[in-house]
């Protein structure tokens, strides 16, 4: 299970949603239907890059009840490592790609009495699938959507059309901002909070919730760590004695895969914990959301999908 099954898909549609966001529709290539999934799931999309394949996790935004196609939306990151640019510039209708089976790290809590969803910008995508589910459950929910301006407000009109009774929008260029303290101070018992969006918003909301005494079990967020670009370094594999160079724009995981190895991995965003690896020597630059601060400080384990080295070399127990 450490090597997720791959589903061959064809790009059935590409739609420009905002100047920065495109939506991709994937159909199964083998003619069958796609697996059902739970709202909040993501898939890892494999793109055949020139030097190496890109593999990025994207939230499924289509309805979980739709088995004929999946949809994901991709925000173009010009400063990123190239995956989102590849999706924007190189992928077009008819192209064939592989995606992983859906995995959920951001599920709705089945015991919640109320669901309070807070999205910033492109962080709206996992909520699009969850809104289908919440409607079907006839749940008590609110969707709070913060964005800079209409150019950054993907799916704003769609949300307005379908969920206007539950939707609250905050356009900061118009001086309308989300005030987490006001929102979170007056919620009934049993409310669960879900946040997805830029780091600033995510931290402001979750910090406020904790300050107001929200129990940790009621606070949920999804923040895939995009592996940062960094300086190159060497990884040595203690068991096989191999030595590999990790380029500035590649991750340890990708470098190992390029060398023909198959390390355990799943989300590729520092969330699921599957690629946790023991480090024997070297200084780790942690970028994941999985390991506890204590473990990070011990400098003994790393998530090779997103974390890098501060030192010139790392020795892994592989």
């Amino acid at each position: 299970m450490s090597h997720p099954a791959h589903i061959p898909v064809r790009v059935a549609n590409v739609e420009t949603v905002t100047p920065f966001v495109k939506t991709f529709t994937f159909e199964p290539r083998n003619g069958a239907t796609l697996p059902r999934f739970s709202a909040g799931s993501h898939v890892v999309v494999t793109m055949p890059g020139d030097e190496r394949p890109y593999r990025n996790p994207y939230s499924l935004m289509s309805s979980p009840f739709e088995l004929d196609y999946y949809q994901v939306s991709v925000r173009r990151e010009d400063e990123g490592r190239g995956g989102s640019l590849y999706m924007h510039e190189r992928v077009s209708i008819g192209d064939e790609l592989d995606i992983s089976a859906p995995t959920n790290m951001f599920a709705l809590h089945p015991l919640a009495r109320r669901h309070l969803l807070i999205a910033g910008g492109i962080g709206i995508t996992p909520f699009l699938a969850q809104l289908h589910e919440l409607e079907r459950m006839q749940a008590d929910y609110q969707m709070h959507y913060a964005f800079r301006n209409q150019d950054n407000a993907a799916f704003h009109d769609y949300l307005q059309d379908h969920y206007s009774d539950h939707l609250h929008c905050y356009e900061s260029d118009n001086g309308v901002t989300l005030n987490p303290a006001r929102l979170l101070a007056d919620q009934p018992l049993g409310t669960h909070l879900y946040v997805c969006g830029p780091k600033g918003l995510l931290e402001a909301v979750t910090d406020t919730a904790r300050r107001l005494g929200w129990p940790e079990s009621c606070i949920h967020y999804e923040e895939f760590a995009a592996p940062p670009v960094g300086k190159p370094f060497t990884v040595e594999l203690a068991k096989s004695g191999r030595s590999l160079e990790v380029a500035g724009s590649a991750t340890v995981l990708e470098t190992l895969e390029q060398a023909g190895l198959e390390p355990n991995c799943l989300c590729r965003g520092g969330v699921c914990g599957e690629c946790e690896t023991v480090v024997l020597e070297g200084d780790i630059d942690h970028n994941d959301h999985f390991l506890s601060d204590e473990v990070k400080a011990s400098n003994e384990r790393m998530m090779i999908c997103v974390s890098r080295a501060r030192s010139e070399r790392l020795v892994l127990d592989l």
Partner: protein
Amino acid sequence: MSAQLQINDPKIKPIETFRDDFTYSNSPEAIRRFPFPFHEDKYMYSVNIEPHNVGPAGSVFAPAFDIDEHYLSEIEERRRVLEEDPGRCAVLPHMMEAQWDTLELLMTSLARDYPQHFKLERNGDRWTWENRLLGIKDTFTFDDASTLPYEPFEYITRQVQGDFTLHGQRNNMLYMDGGMVTCQADWSLQFDLGMDFYEWHGPVPKAHEMGIFERALKYLLNLQVGQPVRRLNWTMTVHPRMDTSPENYHKWGIDRSQVTADNVGELAHLRVELQSLFRLPRSNAIIFSIRCYLISLNELVTVPKWARRFHRVHKSLPPELADYKGFSGYQPYVIDFLSQYDDGAPTSPGTQPD
């Protein structure tokens, strides 16, 4: 390359009993495909999780859910247990989605693996399920429980061998959120309902200290749709008794004192659980299938390799484990009995009969 060629085509026996007169027995074919769990001539604890739904043609590992010659007997036994104690099937209210997931997984798997016995027709939400072994043909609306005679989980698990438990996943934890448990090895669904992973494993000795549950939980939290896994577990049971529940312990506990040197071959059974785990796609829950196989020592020793190896496993078993598994009282008879069949010859690798 149709999958069903890999699958056993069981000749289903008429109903036999797992209580009172205990008419249950294994045919020679059933003995040969028994999931003998020991790879070595000594006892070794291991979690030994491996991919499920793959295995040698005809073996219990090849199908998603194994149907064998005891199908009718086990379905009847389940019906009798539920008649006496309906609480053996219980699902918490927030698990309705997982109930439908279970129904879909079981129906599609059985119809694929055993097309001669089961058939599923889907017209949008209108589904028709045919179970020829039980003479059932029902048309219902998927996602509408009022169109079935039972809730979906109970409806389908009344038609499949083995116990099932349903585990919701939230806050990085798995919970015992439901189950159909009529052939359990001494644990109570009704009592354990709602417990988290560590709580329901609470009574298992030693494994907590060894960190086994932490690793197993992390592994299961990342279990993928379409990539089921399995492991084997084992114990001993007196008589071919499926329902060794704590609920009825006051009725069957006495069995343990009735084993003698003369009757041990007939009374003592190796009980093997084929435990498999599947991620359910819509609910993100996990279904745990606990498929129980029973074989008497008399039947087991018809395979000389197993007789030798089982003797050696018993001799090397830590006493606290025999205590926990509840057979320390009659284990000396078991060892004496098996020793007649152990000439000291080496055994071949693997678990298959020679």
